[in-house]
């Protein structure tokens, strides 16, 4: 293939690529190779991937081409390449969760989500960078070095799923997978001008997802446009008996909603608490302009107050470290992963402590110790117990809001992408990046970020939040808004990103 046609393939949507493969206008191998070539040429600058699986991707693509040749019917995303956040286990393929403690580990099994991707003939290109055990908002907590934002390589790509969002924005893959515990899908999407969805908690199986905070973690789809995200959502969602918190109900009709492009009569609430001090004026201006478009499209827009949301961040930073301190106890140097100090002079307990001291990075240690403190007797009621009560109040705020409106909207993040290094040694400043995204995790709601404009040349995301199991409403609003904004602009926002 010529360079120009290869360049063209990496800029296409997932829907287009799947159609081209089905019609025989391109083979899945050509599509995979074009993306692998681009990764090989450009990812030295971006560092979106921790591991690129050239051989596996080309083999999966060849299998799609063979199916087509044999006249078998292909799935809606068959042959489309995908970038997978390195917190999902992949049989025989390195899985690190961004941590030294898992360096070189090759899991013996595939995560449920990975099984679904493979069954849908989606081509997994490799594993993307992330903050260690998905703890962070910048990818700077990865033990393997940060990812750079394709819009401005001196800035963060968001986190924890910054590798996945950067892979989309840099045209390394048209689809990606993230996980969202407090905003790790939506905040990276917002700062890279891409689409990211946190499905309703329990919508996507956590089997084979390396746990951060189990009551909050949720895998979800990332893409460059709303329809591609919906198609991926449909592939990965659904009941899985191996995850006891998996919802045993039909997946909401997200693809149909994304195609609808009509929101007449929908009631949309603007969260009053997520504006004002601490919010970048350019972010608020872009969000306000997008809300005006929603009104023009026929939605009824009202302001809604959710007073407990201002306590979501402190509650989250008690609940999350508490769950982390328990979940990460499994990294004990005994059954898999790193082992340090086993020289015959140290006991198992000493080897555990030495391994965890050497294998965990600063943010993970900080959160484990914070969680250990919050759960200790004497402090439990004041910290963890009280945070759980605040969680109830946040769920009640959502319930009251959804009595009045169909969806809520807010900025996804208070600011655009900040410079790498700016908040690296100031945990509290870093935590503020998740201010607007955390409530949906605490209450289990569906939520999404979509690009709506630029502030000083950097992307701004609008967050849309829907009730539990009403994920389709996100796609209905986002599909209509994206279409209207692209139409007015004359092109997708990502076209404004620098050419790499």
């Amino acid at each position: 293939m010529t360079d120009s046609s290869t360049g063209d393939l990496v800029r296409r949507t997932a829907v287009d690529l799947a159609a081209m493969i089905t019609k025989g206008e391109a083979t899945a191998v050509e599509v995979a190779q074009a993306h692998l070539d681009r990764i090989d040429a450009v990812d030295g600058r971006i560092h979106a991937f921790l591991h690129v699986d050239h051989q596996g991707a080309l083999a999966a693509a060849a299998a799609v081409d063979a199916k087509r040749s044999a006249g078998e019917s292909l799935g809606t995303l068959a042959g489309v390449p995908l970038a997978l956040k390195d917190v999902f286990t992949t049989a025989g393929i390195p899985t690190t969760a961004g941590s030294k403690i898992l360096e070189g580990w090759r899991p013996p099994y595939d995560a449920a989500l990975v099984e679904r991707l493979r069954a849908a003939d989606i081509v997994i290109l490799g594993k993307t960078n992330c903050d260690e055990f998905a703890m962070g908002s910048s990818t700077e907590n990865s033990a393997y070095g940060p990812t750079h934002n394709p819009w401005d390589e001196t800035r963060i790509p968001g986190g924890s799923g910054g590798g996945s969002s950067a892979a989309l924005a840099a045209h390394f893959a048209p689809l990606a997978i993230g996980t969202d515990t407090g905003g790790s899908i939506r905040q990276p999407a917002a700062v890279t001008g891409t689409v990211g969805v946190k499905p309703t908690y329990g919508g996507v199986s956590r089997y084979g997802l390396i746990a951060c905070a189990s009551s909050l973690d949720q895998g979800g789809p990332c893409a460059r446009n709303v329809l591609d995200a919906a198609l991926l959502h449909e592939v990965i969602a659904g009941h899985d008996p191996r995850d006891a918190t998996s919802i045993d109900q039909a997946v909401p009709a997200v693809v149909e909603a994304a195609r609808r492009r009509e929101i007449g009569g929908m009631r949309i609430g603007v969260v009053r608490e997520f504006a004002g001090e601490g919010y970048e004026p350019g972010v608020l201006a872009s969000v306000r302009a997008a809300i005006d478009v929603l009104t023009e499209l026929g939605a009824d827009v009202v302001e809604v107050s959710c007073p407990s949301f201002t306590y979501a961040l402190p509650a989250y930073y008690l609940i999350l470290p508490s769950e982390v301190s328990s979940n990460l106890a499994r990294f004990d140097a005994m059954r898999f992963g790193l082992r340090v100090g086993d020289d015959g002079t140290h006991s198992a307990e000493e080897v555990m402590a030495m391994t965890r001291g050497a294998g965990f990075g600063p943010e993970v240690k900080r959160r484990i110790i914070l969680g250990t403190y919050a759960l200790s007797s004497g402090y439990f009621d004041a910290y963890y117990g009280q945070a759980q009560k605040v969680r109830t109040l946040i769920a009640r705020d959502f319930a009251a809001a959804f009595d009045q409106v169909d969806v809520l909207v807010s900025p996804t993040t208070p600011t655009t992408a900040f410079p790498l290094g700016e908040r690296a040694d100031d945990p509290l400043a870093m935590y503020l990046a998740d201010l607007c995204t955390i409530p949906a995790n605490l209450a289990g709601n569906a939520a999404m970020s979509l690009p709506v404009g630029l502030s000083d040349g950097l992307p701004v995301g609008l967050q849309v939040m829907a009730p539990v199991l009403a994920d389709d409403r996100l796609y209905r609003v986002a599909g209509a808004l994206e279409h209207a904004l692209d139409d007015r602009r004359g092109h997708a926002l990502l076209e404004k990103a620098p050419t790499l």
Partner: protein
Amino acid sequence: MPAITRDEVANLARLARIALTDEELDHLAPQLEVILEAVARVGEVAAEDIPPTSHALPITNVVRPDEVRAGLSQQAALSGAPEAEDGRFRVPRILEEEA
């Protein structure tokens, strides 16, 4: 809320089985102090009569039929072990041995 001392952080690290260097302890104690001060804001909420929520969805006690089914083979389960011996995980000494 009480201040968190360097000694307390050292004790928490011991309980969490994380060996910390002196430099890490020096750095961590003041950082945790700042974070704890910020998260203590949850105490401002009047919530005596509010039930706690541990989990977002009202799902409890999901069970499956007690049927035998295939799991990982012994070889697969040991494939990531730092050390294995005779089909088992080899671990450092657990009990104190008399010299």
